């Protein structure tokens, strides 16, 4: 954990050799005459890592995720994944969208089948279906797979969205505040399931959130953004808690409160200071 941004010059450093994704100095400017939303953002994502990005609204979190997904182009900088530059969307990056983004005229199963078929174009029909059913079972939706999104609860819809992203077996899973619209109970349950599935499948995840506890529970590393406009990546904090943490016992672990206070303190106070320091 690097508490002092001044002592953490890592962002300008050469990237890890074993990084799966290398983001170098990306920035986004929507109007040529205005200030950039964010700029100079660099970080690595190593294989099997769960990285959370936290920041206030308007700091360009979602833009960073969209750029990683290839849905938006950065105004500056670039990204390399597996030694190749990311220029557009692709099946090697699965996306769980903020709104579930399920196709409402298809059932849960058909939504997942659609993604499996996109990934495995020449797979026989029954194998595609089996694969889709497998991923729906993984998120606990065997019973509801013939229902349409409108007939599912918010939590179930988001699970279908997760199953759809997982079923293409992406190298990196990108999640944009996937649980933002869910109630606390459902959110907790799905977080646990997600962590279990990620541990089983060694899934690399990059997730946007504004919930500190969610980040502490899920992430191996937490990236902190300062406030926009012209937001920066202010800090890259490793989670000191062991990977065996659970939601119930997490707050008994050594260092939980130190880490949590550090993050909350950043969001409440230092995110604005960091912005001032950057613009001064």
């Amino acid at each position, binding site marked *: 954990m690097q508490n002092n941004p001044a002592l953490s010059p890592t962002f300008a450093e050469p990237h890890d050799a074993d990084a799966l994704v290398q983001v170098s100095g990306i920035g986004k400017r929507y109007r040529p005459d205005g200030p950039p939303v964010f700029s100079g953002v660099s970080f690595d994502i190593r294989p099997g890592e769960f990285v959370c990005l936290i920041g206030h609204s308007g700091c360009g979190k979602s833009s960073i995720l969209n750029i990683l997904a290839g849905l938006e182009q950065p105004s500056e900088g670039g990204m390399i994944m597996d030694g190749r530059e990311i220029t*557009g969307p692709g*099946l090697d990056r699965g996306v769980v969208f903020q709104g579930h983004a399920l196709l409402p005229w298809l059932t849960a199963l058909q939504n997942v089948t659609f993604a499996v078929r996109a990934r495995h174009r020449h797979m026989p029909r029954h194998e595609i279906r089996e694969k889709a059913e497998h991923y729906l079972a993984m998120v606990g939706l065997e019973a509801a797979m013939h229902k349409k999104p409108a007939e599912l609860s918010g939590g179930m819809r988001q699970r279908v969205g997760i199953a759809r992203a997982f079923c293409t077996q992406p190298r990196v899973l990108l999640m944009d505040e996937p649980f933002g619209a869910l109630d606390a109970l459902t959110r907790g349950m799905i977080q646990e399931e997600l962590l279990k599935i990620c541990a089983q499948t060694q899934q690399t995840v990059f997730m946007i959130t504004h919930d500190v506890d969610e980040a502490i529970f899920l992430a191996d590393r937490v990236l902190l953004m300062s406030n926009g406009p012209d937001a920066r990546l202010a800090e890259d904090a490793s989670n000191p808690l062991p990977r065996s943490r659970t939601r119930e016992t997490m707050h008994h672990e050594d260092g939980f409160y130190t880490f949590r206070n550090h993050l909350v303190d950043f969001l409440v106070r230092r995110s604005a200071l960091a912005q001032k320091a950057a613009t001064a």
Partner: protein
Amino acid sequence: MLSQENRLSFFLSFASLLGVLLIWQFSTLPQASRSPYGIPDGNAEYQRLMGRSAVASTVRSDFPTPGAFVRNAIEVLHAPFHNNGPNDRGIGWQLGASLLRVMIGYGLATLVAVPLGFVFGLQPVIQKALNPFVQILRPISPLAWMPIALYTIRDAELCAIFVIFICSLWPILLNTAFGVASIRREWLNVIRTLEVRWPQRIFFVLLPAAAPTILTGMRIGLGVAWLAIVAAEMLVGSSGIGYFVWNQWNNLSLSNVILAVLLIGLAGMALDAALAFVQRSVRYAE
């Protein structure tokens, strides 16, 4: 509670039908003849001078009474498909001829307008470039095309089909373009991240997503086509329900005209109901 509401609305609808029939009945009752010169009604000498029988002190309106209309309608609908040459064909035959024209013209319009609407919806540049022309062509009454069509096509049958085509084209085109352009960005992002190929994108995502809006355009288009066909057939037809209406007006058979008008309404309602059924089947809840 709802059934009571239903009963009330049924009663009101029945009562208004009855009211219209009563007004119709009373306004077509035989009336005492009135002379414009103050000669008393029923004056036998005046009646003789007017060429009527001396006892006929009343005149009958040319407009049929409801009873006369129903008797005539039963007779006409008894053999709707009789065919005694071009001037004496059954009303079913005429209605069928109109429906066939509409189906061909409207079918062609759909085949052109839906793909073109997709191009408009997906390529804002093309939409912007061609929109002025669409906006100029759209408000033109289909019948205004008639002389141009007659001169260039030189075939009455094809002209009628062209008129149907040109008037149902615009609502389908504009609604398709709007439906495709307003597909939720999220769904487009999903198909982009899944690298779905273009045919699959169109048939599995874009088309189902825009289908309800496209169907709205198709319903408007069919309504306009059904309005236009009657007028077009009055001008060019040797068959069709519009021709039938005009022919019966020339025969001064108002019973047949009323019957045809009612059938035009019923057929239009049936066409719209069929498309409404299709629209319900493609609708989705978000």
